[in-house]
């Protein structure tokens, strides 16, 4: 087993553990802690996949901005900061659905090439040429989504006194 594979195995286990912990712990602030570790862990996986630009983006946007947004959301919607998730019944149906999804997906593993293969690497210049060239419309669409989101969100949370 190569060093990369060992590293991936460790990172994958941490990712699964932190994702599960984020949803299962009872303190909401601890949830944010776990999810922050999860985002950082995924960005490490992107570095492992030779996609450093995406790794940095994941760190900046997810581990930085999204985590802070979620923390901000918890702090403004609860009187006490260390509030708990109200008790929820974990019925058999959600567990079954999640398990079925997992089993179906894992069943696809067998048909992938089992041997190790070399990673295709791209330098950031090629990525930006692709993003602002043939795939430019995706960015335009992202701009429209953000326009709708920003305009509506600002209106919605503005204290109305007009």
């Amino acid at each position, binding site marked *: 087993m190569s060093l990369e594979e060992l590293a991936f195995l460790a990172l994958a286990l941490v990712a699964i553990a932190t994702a599960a912990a*984020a949803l299962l712990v009872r303190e909401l602030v601890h949830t944010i802690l776990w999810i922050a570790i999860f985002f950082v862990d995924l960005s490490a996986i992107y570095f492992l996949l030779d996609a450093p630009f995406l790794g940095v983006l994941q760190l900046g946007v997810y581990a930085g901005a999204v985590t802070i947004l979620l923390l901000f959301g918890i702090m403004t919607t609860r009187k006490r900061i260390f509030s708990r998730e109200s008790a929820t019944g974990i019925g058999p149906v959600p567990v079954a659905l999640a398990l079925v999804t997992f089993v179906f997906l894992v069943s696809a593993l067998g048909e992938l090439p089992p041997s*190790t293969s070399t990673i295709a690497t791209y330098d950031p210049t090629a990525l930006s040429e692709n993003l602002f060239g043939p795939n430019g419309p995706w960015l335009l669409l992202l701009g429209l989504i953000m326009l709708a989101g920003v305009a509506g969100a600002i209106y*919605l949370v503005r204290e109305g006194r007009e």
Partner: protein
Amino acid sequence: MTELALTGFLGLSAALVGIGIFGILTRRNFILLLISVEIAMNAAILNFVYFAAFPSGTHGLSGQAITVVLIGFAATEVAVGLAIVLALNRLKGTINVARATELKL
């Protein structure tokens, strides 16, 4: 030259999307629902990154471009969700989805 097996990655994203769906179906706190959605979204993003690294066609680079767009989109989605929940919190004082029972289910 990094060498990795493809199967492990799909196993990871399968587990993450399973956890995300489980969270969406069982959690009732809006913030936890958002987090569940983001976990599943990260599974999709992870898929795009490693299918770009092990391309089965000639458009591998597009996978990384999609990732950039999706990360930006996910941040917007969280912001919109929080705006809605802040507005509701101001009106009703709860962000528990099950407790906000004005509408019949």
